[in-house]
């Protein structure tokens, strides 16, 4: 399937990325690079306490226009994320704190000055008195009877509780094998290289509020911002310039974004807020923190018979816009069965409000946690039946012969061969040779291999989002394609590129259908004034949705090019083909410029019945199914665990993935590397701990460890390419997948390594502390057993 049909640079080509030249030369244009006359900087005074009633706030006299409290932002409404899911409770997220603060870092006042340093000086002139309330710092304490309430009108601390039960009892009654596990993943922040940033100004000519913001979803932000500021949408223009990573964080409408836009609207001069790393660590969108209690039932072979799970997600103080505080738990409950054939399943989920920053969907959304839990279950079952984990895993995976397959939570797996990917991963990592070799290396470290398999629901659409009751539901993504008079192609889409290379891959799709050479295709994204509507870049949907739309619009333009070319060459339109960057009929050929010139400047050459739409078209696209396309992969990893220091080194890492038709395999690999690197962070390093009073303990990168190049293995990737039957070109999404499996594969490898010590780590990250604690606990256990025997 690899290799491209058109000019060697259409779909399937390993084309170099169009966006790289400017980035490699440091000439990207990010929000922080914008210069504007009269630009003023904004700094926020943030709450120093986790939960409190604000008793009083005061600012120096004559600070009007420089220091703002909640009541000063006349007309700015709180961010309210509604959902039609029954039982969901709505939180008002004020742009600046009103009567209460609910997490350390919540914006309390906004300060404006000629520089950021001066604005930060102003924050020090403000006096706020707090009356502290007990801080809710975990799901358990949030759900405890008599817990302090974050939103007193709710009566409890639950944003949402959901349950699903297919009927579990028969499976439970018959099962000879039962395993019961408690598993958790730590709270994280997302750390795009570029933090959030906003520059807002008033365009007097257009009579528009223009907001340059580092976002993945410009068209959605326009809707959300207009709502919060009470403006007609036509009065708001959102421009996302270069965006240095998003990972879900930049899908959100941020209070800071609303506040800065309010300033520009009110004062009609430009204002800027650039999030710094500390703000990101303390107040930026949090993610990943799940807690699982799972009972799984299996037969003597290790075949899953049923599973009973309780999932709690520590979702912080407010519901984020637009995804709500509940998307994560809903996804966790729905996705826990993963790529497995499971016939009996019960799950209860809790989205618990806590005194931490709001929780947001992060690359992989719920699945890294789900995979981490489920894959430990599979390994625990394998252990209980005394078999190799990969074998038990392979027998439980949905087989290729069952495709398409609808699983127990009604997810429709479109295509693929899950066990085949696992088997290749097992071969590539060399499990058999490893099992025949030593369990410890020359330095005495314990060696182990772990596996993890998953599905990645990509580009899930209308039906899925409607079921979640979100304030918006994605439908058709639109794209605009136009041949210019000189024969180049303009492509416009409302999606945004945040590092995933859409300027290149969308151009490859356009090249595929129009034959216009890649270098002559210009892709414009991320500006609500110049692009057709898309809900944006999230849920691994970009290349499926925008790619499909560009394909459709491109085909319309291509057929019109052919019609004009056929007339010019005096042949029938179906005799016209695109080849080598030109338009052919037999041996006669034209350039694209010949056709462009005819339409725009030489209408006397056009056929009578020429399409009046000309050489441009806007088309909408969505896949034939709304429930998403399922990419999948198996990861295998070998680790060495130092039992004296608790340090884990990754010795080898193998990924066998299938994302359907690859538009650009090099970009697929880049996405996979990047995601897997973040997965290693989740597995071994990243953690935002809090003390009992709600103070964040990791507020710089000295305390919040991100994996660097030295800590990352050389990921070895192999591809499978099973087309989706439901999408244009057979494409599936791939943006998130890499991040899903590493925590699971690595924890399984660690536990495989530690098997001789009977130690088991169940929580991520597997920090030295946790690894050493597990080893110590096992010593106690073994000792107790020895004692009992004696």
């Amino acid at each position, binding site marked *: 399937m690899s290799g491209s049909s058109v000019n060697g640079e259409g779909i399937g080509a390993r084309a170099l990325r169009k966006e790289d030249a400017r980035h490699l030369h440091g000439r990207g244009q990010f929000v922080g690079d914008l210069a504007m006359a009269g630009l003023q900087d904004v700094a926020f005074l943030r709450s120093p306490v986790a939960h409190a009633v604000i008793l009083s706030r005061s600012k120096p006299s004559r600070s009007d226009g420089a220091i703002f409290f909640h009541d000063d932002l006349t007309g700015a409404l709180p961010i309210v994320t509604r959902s039609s899911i029954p039982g969901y409770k709505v939180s008002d997220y004020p742009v600046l704190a009103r009567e209460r603060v609910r997490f350390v870092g919540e914006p309390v006042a906004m300060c404006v000055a000629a520089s*950021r340093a001066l604005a*930060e*000086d102003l924050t*020090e002139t403000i006096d706020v008195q707090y009356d502290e309330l007990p801080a809710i710092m975990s799901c358990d304490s949030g759900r405890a009877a008599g817990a302090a309430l974050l939103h007193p009108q709710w009566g409890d601390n639950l944003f949402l509780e959901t349950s699903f039960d297919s009927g579990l009892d028969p499976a439970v009654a018959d099962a000879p094998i039962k395993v019961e596990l408690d598993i958790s993943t730590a709270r994280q922040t997302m750390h795009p290289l570029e933090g959030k940033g906003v520059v807002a100004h008033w365009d007097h000519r257009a009579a528009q509020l223009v907001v340059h913001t580092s976002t993945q979803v410009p068209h959605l932000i326009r809707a959300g911002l207009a709502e919060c500021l009470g403006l007609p949408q036509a009065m708001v223009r959102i421009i996302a310039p270069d965006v240095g990573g998003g990972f879900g964080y930049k899908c959100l409408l941020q209070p800071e974004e609303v506040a800065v836009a309010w300033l520009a609207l009110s004062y009609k001069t430009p204002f800027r807020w650039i999030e710094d790393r500390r*703000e990101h660590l303390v107040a930026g969108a949090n993610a990943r923190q799940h807690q699982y209690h799972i009972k799984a039932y299996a037969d003597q072979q290790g075949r899953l018979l049923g599973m009973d799970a309780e999932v709690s997600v520590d979702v912080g103080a407010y519901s984020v816009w637009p995804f709500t505080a509940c998307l994560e738990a809903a996804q966790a409950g729905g996705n826990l069965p993963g790529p497995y054939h499971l016939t009996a399943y019960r799950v209860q989920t809790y989205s618990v409000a806590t005194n931490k920053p709001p929780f947001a969907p992060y690359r992989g959304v719920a699945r890294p946690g789900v995979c981490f839990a489920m894959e430990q279950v599979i390994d625990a079952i394998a252990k209980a039946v005394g078999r190799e984990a990969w074998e038990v895993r392979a027998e439980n995976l949905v087989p290729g012969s069952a495709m398409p397959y609808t699983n127990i939570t009604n997810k429709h797996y479109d295509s693929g061969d899950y066990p085949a990917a696992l088997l290749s991963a097992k071969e590539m990592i060399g499990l058999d040779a490893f099992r025949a070799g030593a369990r410890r290396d020359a330095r005495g470290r314990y060696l182990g291999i772990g596996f993890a398999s998953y599905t990645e629901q990509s580009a899930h659409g209308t039906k899925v989002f409607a079921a979640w009751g979100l304030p918006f539901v994605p439908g058709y993504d639109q794209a605009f394609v136009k041949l210019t008079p000189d024969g180049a192609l303009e492509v416009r889409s409302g999606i945004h590129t945040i590092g995933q290379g859409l300027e290149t891959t969308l151009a490859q799709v356009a090249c595929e259908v129009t034959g216009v050479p890649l270098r002559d295709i210009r892709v414009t994204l991320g500006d609500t004034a110049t692009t057709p509507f898309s809900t944006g870049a999230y849920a691994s949907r970009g290349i499926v949705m925008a790619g499909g739309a560009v394909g459709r619009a491109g085909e319309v333009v291509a057929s019109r090019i052919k019609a004009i070319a056929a007339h010019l060459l005096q042949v029938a339109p179906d005799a016209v083909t695109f080849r080598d960057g030109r338009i052919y009929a037999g041996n006669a050929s034209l350039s694209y410029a010949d056709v462009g010139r005819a339409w725009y400047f030489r209408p006397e050459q056009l056929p009578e019945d020429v399409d009046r739409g000309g050489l441009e078209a806007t088309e909408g696209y969505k896949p034939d199914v709304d429930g998403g396309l399922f990419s999948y992969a198996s990861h295998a990893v070998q680790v060495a665990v130092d039992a004296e220091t608790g340090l884990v080194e990754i010795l080898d890492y193998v990924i066998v993935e299938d994302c359907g038709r690859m538009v650009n395999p090099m970009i697929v690999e880049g996405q996979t590397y990047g995601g897997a690197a973040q997965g290693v962070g989740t597995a071994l390093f990243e953690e935002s701990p809090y003390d009992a009073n709600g103070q964040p303990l990791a507020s710089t990168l000295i305390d919040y*460890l991100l994996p660097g190049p030295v800590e990352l293995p050389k990921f070895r990737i192999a591809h499978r390419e099973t087309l989706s039957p439901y999408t244009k070109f057979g494409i599936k999404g791939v943006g998130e997948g890499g991040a899903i499996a590493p925590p699971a594969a690595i924890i399984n490898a660690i536990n495989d390594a530690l098997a001789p010590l009977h130690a088991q780590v169940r929580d991520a990250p597997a*920090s030295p*502390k946790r690894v050493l604690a597990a080893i110590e606990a096992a010593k106690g256990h073994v000792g107790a057993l020895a004692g009992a025997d004696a």
Partner: protein
Amino acid sequence: MKPAAFDYVRVRSVREAVDLLAAKDDAKILAGGQSLTPMLNLRLARSQLLIDIKRAEGLRSLAADDSVVAIGVGWTHAEIEDGVFEDPTRGLMRHVARGIAYRAVRNRGTIGGSLAHADPAADWVSTMAVLGATLVCEGAGGKRRHVAADSFLQGAFLTQLASDEVLVAVEVPRLSAQARWGYYKICRKAGEFAHALGAVIHDPARNICRIVVGATDGPPKLLPGTAAALAADPMSEALDGLDQEIIAALPEHEPAARRLHATAVRRAIAAMSTRMDH
């Protein structure tokens, strides 16, 4: 994350720096800025006046005799790593420098800044303690004091430097040709501060055997008992007394932390016994 306003002076001499320190209450020396500027940016440290000593005369000096090399405080970690001047410790200092942070930090951070900053987890703090180095402090009127590196720290981020003194040099004793050293830093990431640190030198020709356990939340601790055992029997790897001596040295630490520190020391010793020069 921007600092509050401050004044900045680049001094030409240590004397000028000392005078300014004496004149201004919260004046601070600025060396490589790799610890100070982040603290200023976070507004965890404040200063009305930063006294930049990078160009001050005499701080990038080297004075060597047969037994000691006096290293000016202005040399950067990177220069030491690169061997810009002769390493009197037979590779220990170069090895240590290479493990500090990453190159961008090493290009600016100085050995003197690191010692004066007195982070218990800093590499030079333990290294100079194990080497038995002497720190030279200069105060009012050019008066110089010599302080043993192993007692320079009084606690975390607290040293014997008086408020109007500048650290000017580190006198490092030369290791003899037979000397062996071992250094082991336990950290999770390349270039991270140590979670536990062990350092050992054994120089029979000078009749010196010293072991330090570092990154302890306070000053590095010498382990004389274990050192004596090692000197008596350099091939011994048993070191039976080590755990007890660590417990005595770190009475406040959790057992897990003590085990980690004992591991660092044990591995420093093991590294020494297998490699003569690094």
